């Protein structure tokens, strides 16, 4: 070892030499070497990521200006490379900001803002530009036209990776047919192996952005997704950080830059959901943590007992030169106030003495000065803690504090503990107060209780376990008093890491209302359903939007949707679509909390097939989950998977279950309708056969059986009968409800001759020589309703009945 030391010592130049080789790395340079961190790890994936970043950017740009997004994505082969073109109808960019948006990493408007948005770090699109220039060596070609601009601007730029600054090679005016918007053209080394992911991305984007029109054209495919709504997502508002979601470093930075002087002011000014009251609670918690609490003892004479030590005489003794009457009154005042208290801490005792000094001083026209007060306080405190006055003849009463602690410990521990053991423990704990301070933090208290417990275990040979210790600490801590010391000023806190850490802890442990959710913009269950309906031709759709929750101080909302049946692939497992802040997550499905939750749900309960009772459900289903948050916790910078945060996982589960419950009742209903159809088809065969045979045996005509069938099927029977009446005919349409529930029925009889004397409640509309007799009525279970009218004797009819499932309906006309 020594030889190395001497070698180093001999050559003082090495450190300097090493230092010379060290230099700062630009962010652009860093990502040049770490492309995978941003999702550009391969040609296939790089293309998808570039599309994703460009489209996210485009959507954000349009929405922020209240424009319904209209996005065009084109991928074409360009020699050895692929050319990606993304156009939007956003507000366009000014000549100043444009190069920076596309040509500088970590340039963005949203990083510092607590508000739901697609991108955040401002890495996305510039990373795509960087990737393109690294692989193809070609500049990004950008056209942008601002609203009302006469012409458009055209730039070609690359990123100077050393400086992380855009380098513009071409800048000129041009014309563009879009009235406003931005167009970016990138050439990059890529391949289309990830075609299905690309299509998924576009399709999924369309689902969660039903207000956007998105078109994709690539060498092998071209599709367009029209908008399903004209409703833009609700605008979000920025919120201040929530005290539960900030880290120490952030707080120190905030402390450094705030205008507030007091901690309370700082808390109220810089955080959301903090008012005076909450700030006070945080400050109290900070005091407890930073300064500790003071032990409060039972004062002599309290609990209604006779004073075993005379507080008054101790105070009298300590007070000199104030006249006997005044001294007595002063001492009595102190003793009196003390007697009224359950417990008293040292700073409370000081207050009592102050008060008595003021009052008695005024009464007797004398002044109890600082020194007198201090001496009196000391003397009284000694009686409280049973310390005696220090003289030989008054050793005090040490059992006072021990008794006090014994009572606390006895209440706090299980009744099975031997009295003598508790007593011994309380003696030892009281000892620590005699030797040390009466002001201590919770950690210090734990320490003392721990030591006393250890000793008790050692000497009394009994166990004094964790739970007992914790209970004692809890009970003692709860009788201790928060000290009145002023918290440090903000600038002092900013300079002290430890104190700032105490403040962060205090903020975390204080109950604070959840952050407001106006910073979030959920899609809403209606629009999720609309999005699913637009992209999937299914039989059934359900969606659910949960109330906001909080994870790490960031509010979040989870939404889920399910599409089932129809054209959805029935083979294999259900498709899971994952979204974070309206952005589809395409890669790393297995690492995502959403996937874990879906797999953990017992789908059999909801009518889906699930081999083994866990894992991905099978069948023609699409399950979508959207997590919206001011800060979605991702597993990595490429933002492909939501991290397993318990609060978010719980909400994901609840949202999926909510939608799945609707699926279940749909499937149950479908099953019962299937059964009904089957029954109807079997009975529809058997009963006519039976009727025929019965007629044969009895020698009658075949009986009418529709009524019987309707009754058997608990069906709604709609029957028209006509009878000649004068020169026309009377029509009677009877609805018999044999089902167990009330039915609302919408009936339209289309007649080729004009109907007259139509019964009440029905309306007649003529259209091209046909009369539509419309009638809406509620028919109770086992009830009947009749529509009557007259019409010409040559009229033809066509009856249409709505409001009842076809399986439950028998129409006889």
């Amino acid at each position, binding site marked *: 070892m020594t030889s190395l030391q001497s070698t180093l010592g001999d050559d003082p130049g090495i450190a300097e030499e090493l230092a010379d080789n060290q230099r700062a790395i630009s962010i652009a340079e860093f990502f040049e070497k770490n492309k995978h961190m941003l999702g550009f790890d391969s040609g296939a994936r790089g293309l998808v990521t570039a599309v994703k970043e460009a489209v996210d950017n485009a959507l954000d740009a349009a929405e922020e200006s209240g424009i319904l997004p209209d996005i065009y994505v084109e991928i074409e082969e360009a020699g050895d490379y692929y050319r990606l073109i993304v156009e939007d109808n956003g507000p366009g960019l000014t000549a100043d900001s444009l190069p920076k948006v596309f040509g500088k990493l970590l340039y963005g408007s949203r990083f510092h803002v607590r508000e739901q948005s697609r991108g955040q770090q401002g890495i996305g699109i510039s990373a795509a530009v960087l990737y393109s220039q690294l692989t193809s060596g070609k500049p990004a070609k950008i056209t942008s036209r601002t609203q009302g601009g006469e012409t458009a601007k055209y730039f070609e730029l690359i990123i100077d990776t050393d400086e992380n600054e855009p380098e513009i090679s071409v800048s000129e005016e041009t014309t563009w047919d879009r009235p406003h918007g931005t167009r970016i053209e990138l050439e990059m080394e890529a391949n289309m192996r990830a075609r299905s992911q690309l299509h998924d991305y576009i399709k999924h984007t369309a689902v969660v952005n039903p207000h956007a029109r998105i078109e994709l054209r690539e060498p092998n495919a071209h599709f367009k997704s029209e908008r399903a709504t004209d409703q833009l997502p609700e605008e979000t508002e920025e919120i201040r950080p929530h005290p539960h979601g900030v880290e120490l470093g952030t707080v120190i930075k905030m402390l450094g830059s705030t205008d507030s002087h007091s901690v309370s002011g700082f808390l109220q000014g810089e955080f959301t959901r903090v008012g005076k009251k909450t700030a006070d609670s945080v400050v109290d918690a900070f005091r407890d943590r930073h300064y500790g609490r003071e032990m409060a003892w039972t004062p002599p004479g309290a609990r209604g007992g006779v004073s075993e030590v005379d507080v008054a005489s101790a105070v009298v003794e300590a007070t000199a030169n104030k006249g006997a009457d005044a001294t007595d009154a002063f001492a009595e005042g102190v003793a009196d106030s003390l007697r009224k208290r359950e417990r008293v801490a040292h700073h409370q005792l000081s207050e009592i003495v102050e008060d008595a000094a003021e009052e008695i001083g005024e009464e007797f026209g004398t002044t109890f000065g600082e020194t007198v007060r201090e001496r009196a306080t000391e003397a009284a405190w000694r009686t409280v803690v049973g310390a005696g006055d220090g003289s030989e003849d008054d050793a005090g009463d040490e059992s006072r504090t021990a008794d006090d602690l014994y009572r606390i410990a006895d209440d706090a521990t299980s009744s099975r503990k031997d009295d003598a053991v508790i007593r011994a423990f309380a003696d030892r704990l009281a000892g620590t107060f005699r030797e040390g301070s009466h002001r201590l933090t919770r950690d210090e208290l734990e320490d003392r209780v721990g030591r006393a417990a250890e000793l008790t275990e050692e000497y009394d040979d009994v166990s004094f376990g964790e739970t007992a210790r914790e209970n004692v600490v809890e009970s003692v801590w709860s009788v201790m008093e928060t000290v009145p010391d002023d918290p440090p000023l903000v600038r002092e806190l900013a300079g002290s890491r430890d104190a700032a850490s105490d403040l962060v802890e205090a903020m975390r442990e204080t109950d604070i209302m959840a952050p407001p959710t106006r910073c979030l913009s959920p899609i809403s269950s209606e629009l999720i359903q609309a999005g699913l309906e637009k992209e999937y031709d299914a039989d059934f759709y359900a969606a659910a939007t949960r109330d906001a929750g909080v994870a790490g101080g960031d509010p979040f909302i989870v939404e889920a949707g399910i599409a089932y049946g129809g054209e959805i692939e029935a083979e294999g497992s259900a498709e899971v679509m994952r979204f974070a802040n309206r952005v589809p997550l395409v890669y790393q499905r297995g690492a995502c909390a959403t996937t874990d939750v879906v797999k953990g749900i017992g789908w059999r309960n909801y009518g889906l097939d699930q081999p083994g009772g866990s894992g991905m459900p099978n069948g023609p289903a699409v399950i979508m989950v959207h997590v919206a948050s001011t800060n979605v916790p991702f597993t990595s910078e490429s933002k492909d998977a939501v991290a397993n945060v318990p609060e978010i996982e719980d909400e994901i589960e609840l949202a999926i279950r909510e939608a799945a419950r609707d699926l279940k009742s749909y499937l149950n209903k479908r099953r019962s309708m299937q059964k009904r159809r089957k029954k109807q088809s079997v009975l529809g065969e058997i*009963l006519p056969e039976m009727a025929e045979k019965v007629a044969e*045996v*009895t020698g009658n005509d075949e009986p009418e059986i529709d009524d019987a069938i309707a009754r058997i099927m608990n069906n709604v029977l709609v029957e028209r009968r006509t009878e000649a009446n004068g020169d026309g005919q009377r029509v009677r349409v009877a609805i018999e409800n044999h089902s167990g529930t009330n039915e609302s029925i919408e009936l339209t009889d289309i007649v080729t001759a004009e109907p007259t004397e139509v019964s009440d409640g029905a309306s007649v509309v003529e259209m091209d020589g046909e009369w539509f007799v419309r009638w809406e009525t509620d028919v109770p279970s086992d009830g009947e309703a009749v529509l009557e009218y007259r019409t010409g004797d040559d009229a033809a009819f066509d009856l249409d009945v709505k409001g009842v499932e076809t399986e439950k309906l028998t129409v006889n006309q």
Partner: protein
Amino acid sequence: MSADDDRAREQLIDLAARFYDQFEQGEVPSMSIPTRTKSNIEYDEEADVWVYGDRESTRSANSVRGAQKLLKAVYTIDFLADQLEQDRSSTLRELYYLSESWDNDNAQFNDQDESNQLVEDLEIVSEVTREDFHMRPEESGAKVMGPLRIREQTNRGAREIHCQDDVGQGGYQIPNNPDTIEFLECDAEFVLCVETGGMRDRLVENGFDEEFGALTVHLGGQPARATRRLTKRLHDELDLPVTVFTDGDPWSYRIFGSVAYGSIKSAHLSEYLATPQAQFIGIQPADIVEYDLPTDPLSDSDVNALESELEDPRFQTDYWEEQIELQLEIDKKAEQQALAARGLDFVTETYLPERLDEMGVL
């Protein structure tokens, strides 16, 4: 077609007409039948037999199964009505096979239990017995041996037969419809129903019928309706005491039960088939103890059957409760043939005379 046949046919067509009317009135076709379980039989004090109680189950076209049953019923009615019209008869098994020829797959029977049950249903609802539908069971009727002269109306004319002198060792074969028999002359003292063929042969070989004036009726397991009907007529018309001699196990007690009280399946015909005055000879569990007979232990199913008999209203008498509880206690059963352990003549010379004497028959 006889008047009886006419009535039967009318009853069947009435049943079909009931379905017809239900259809016409927009009602769900259905028919109600007493529930045929042991919890739904009750004692008819007047007739002294067990009959069905008030509980009914409904065959209704409400369900696919119910509709199929009713369809089959209508087809069967059609068939039976035709059969009566043509004065033909058929067996239950034939009915089952015959359904295969029907033009409707839905009306065909799945197994013979189904067709047998349906015929029973029709019997109950139409109040016409199976015999009057001209439906015969498969099993041949049992045999009678004893001093009795009868006249039977056969398909080939009337025959007069003396059941001791005119028959072989096997005895006189009871026809499917014993109501075609007329009793002419009777020297018998009592009727002795015997469960097993072996024991019947032993009695005949030992000349028990001649010596004691016994009219032996071979039951052959669960007795056919014809056997039970004849036994009842022998008792009612000739005033002969009826005794039943079976194995000493729970299944044999049920045989006695169906002779004396009527069976659960045909409780609607109890009045017509049961002989409530029939007396049980044995083998009684008490005999097993008294004569120290060779035995087998009770199997689990034996024990279950005994326990279920304790709950059977037909066996809720002091006598049967005592016997069954004794048997459960000794945990043994014995066959009739076990008496041979005391010699081949023991049954005719000792056991039966002693038991019949005890019972006041001799």
